[in-house]
């Protein structure tokens, strides 16, 4: 395992415990989604793993070494994409990346190429303060890739992006994972998690409710049923058939053969439905 977490606990100096004993492991090259509503502790977990917060309880091993014992060498191997556009706003995008890249020992990718990969203009001398929020976030994303990280932390990577750029970012994440980068993705956007993650962890109230692949979670909580929409006169009527019952299965097949069927859908739950069932909480809860 690239990351091995046992009984991780954390409490802010002035507050109640945020994390109450997390256990999970992440394999090299895996895209691991950490999902939960605001305030569930997902960003705190990422901050702990990025060593922005200290003083955790439990055991956390990354790159086969306890997190608390990591040296500055650790930062050569990780990239962190924050959920807010933290940049020197008076500098251009290329300047932001160029100067940041000088802090790494092991060599970095060319800033201009990374920016171009994220559909940002080359040789643009405008300060990033004049960019839109989506553009700034893509600069932050590019910066997090500068040092070719082995472990890449992403916090809401597609937030604020228009659909084409969100698709491009997802493709970039998949591409890096195929090349061996391990991705730790925190989000409350289930569509991002569902389309990207090899496994997801559901976090609620500082504890892990479950860890599994999106497919397994959906299968485990599915209803074996289909919903059929058919036309009756001028109106559209929906009917559901439980596939585990012989009589309903036969009725469904007859309807498909003879009836004016317009649509048929299996009633698999979305990841969001599964989250609600497992944790009893909605992801968009305040």
């Amino acid at each position, binding site marked *: 395992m690239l990351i091995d977490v046992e009984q991780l606990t954390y409490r802010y100096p002035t507050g109640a415990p945020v994390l109450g004993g997390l256990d999970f492991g992440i394999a090299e090259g895996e895209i691991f989604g950490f999902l939960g509503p605001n305030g569930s502790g997902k960003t705190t977990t990422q901050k702990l793993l990025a060593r922005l917060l200290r003083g955790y309880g439990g055991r956390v091993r990354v790159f086969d070494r306890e997190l608390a014992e990591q040296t500055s060498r650790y930062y050569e191997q990780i990239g962190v994409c924050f959920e807010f*556009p933290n940049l*020197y706003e008076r500098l251009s995008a290329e300047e932001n990346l160029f100067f940041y890249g000088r802090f790494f020992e092991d060599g970095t990718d060319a800033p201009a190429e990374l920016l171009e990969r994220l559909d940002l203009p080359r040789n643009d001398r405008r300060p990033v303060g004049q960019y839109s929020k989506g553009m700034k976030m893509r600069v932050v994303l590019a910066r997090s890739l500068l040092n070719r990280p082995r472990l890449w932390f992403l916090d809401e990577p597609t937030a604020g992006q228009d659909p084409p750029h969100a698709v491009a970012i997802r493709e970039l994440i998949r591409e890096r994972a195929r090349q061996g980068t391990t991705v730790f993705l925190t989000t409350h956007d289930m569509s991002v998690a569902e389309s990207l993650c090899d496994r997801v962890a559901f976090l609620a109230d500082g504890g892990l409710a479950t860890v599994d692949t999106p497919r397994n979670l959906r299968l485990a909580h599915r209803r074996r049923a289909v919903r059929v929409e058919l036309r009756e006169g001028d109106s559209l009527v929906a009917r559901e058939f439980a596939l585990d019952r012989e009589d309903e299965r036969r009725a469904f097949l007859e309807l498909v053969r003879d009836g004016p069927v317009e649509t048929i859908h299996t009633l698999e739950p979305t990841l969001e439905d599964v989250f609600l069932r497992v944790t009893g909480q909605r992801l968009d809860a305040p």
Partner: protein
Amino acid sequence: MSPETRRLRGALALALRVQSRARFPHVYLGVAVALAALLRLAAVEWRELLLPVLLLGEPGTLGLYLVAAHRYYERNSGMDVALRVTPLPRATVVAAPVLTTACLGTVAGLTIQALVLGVDARLLWLAPPLFGLVVFSGLVGFALAERFAEFTRFLLGSVVPNLVLSLPFTTALGWVPPLWLVWLPSQWAVSAFVEVTRGEPDPALWAACCAGLAAANAAAMLVAMGAERSAAEAVSPA
């Protein structure tokens, strides 16, 4: 070049670029030229009296506020957090904006000197204590910026340290006996200035003043790093 040296050079280049875009050199040199013009217009006795006050006071005071402004800019943009996930040592994070500001302050002080008294070799002797003084003021500014989350509270909180640091400059005006202030690093800069500008300077005394400033800066560096660490660890749950 070792990785640490490379990182320090990178951090200095970044700090200089950020400060240039924020027009720190314009502020420093603009004020220096304005003060030099004022001194040139002043009567000779006033000029001699005010020269050390302005030559050391302007770079020192501006150093405190500009380093703090640099730090607030980094904090408000979230760049302080972004820098913490790089291999950049904390000492370099603190030192880079202070050192670049000290270079600007030294140039500003020497500009005042050159414009008022003309260019001569004594300028070179003045550079080390001037640089040391601005480093000290900058480290105080950095530590105060880490201590106060809001800039307005910093402005209030910086009044007393700034006044205390400025006290030795008033010795030139004869207001406060120098012996009372011998423990203040800014007093050592004033003493070095006096040694440089008087007829036959004592190199040993000048060197002692510079060494004292260096030691004070080492201590101030530890305080500023401690303040940076405390601010980082007091990060909010947001």
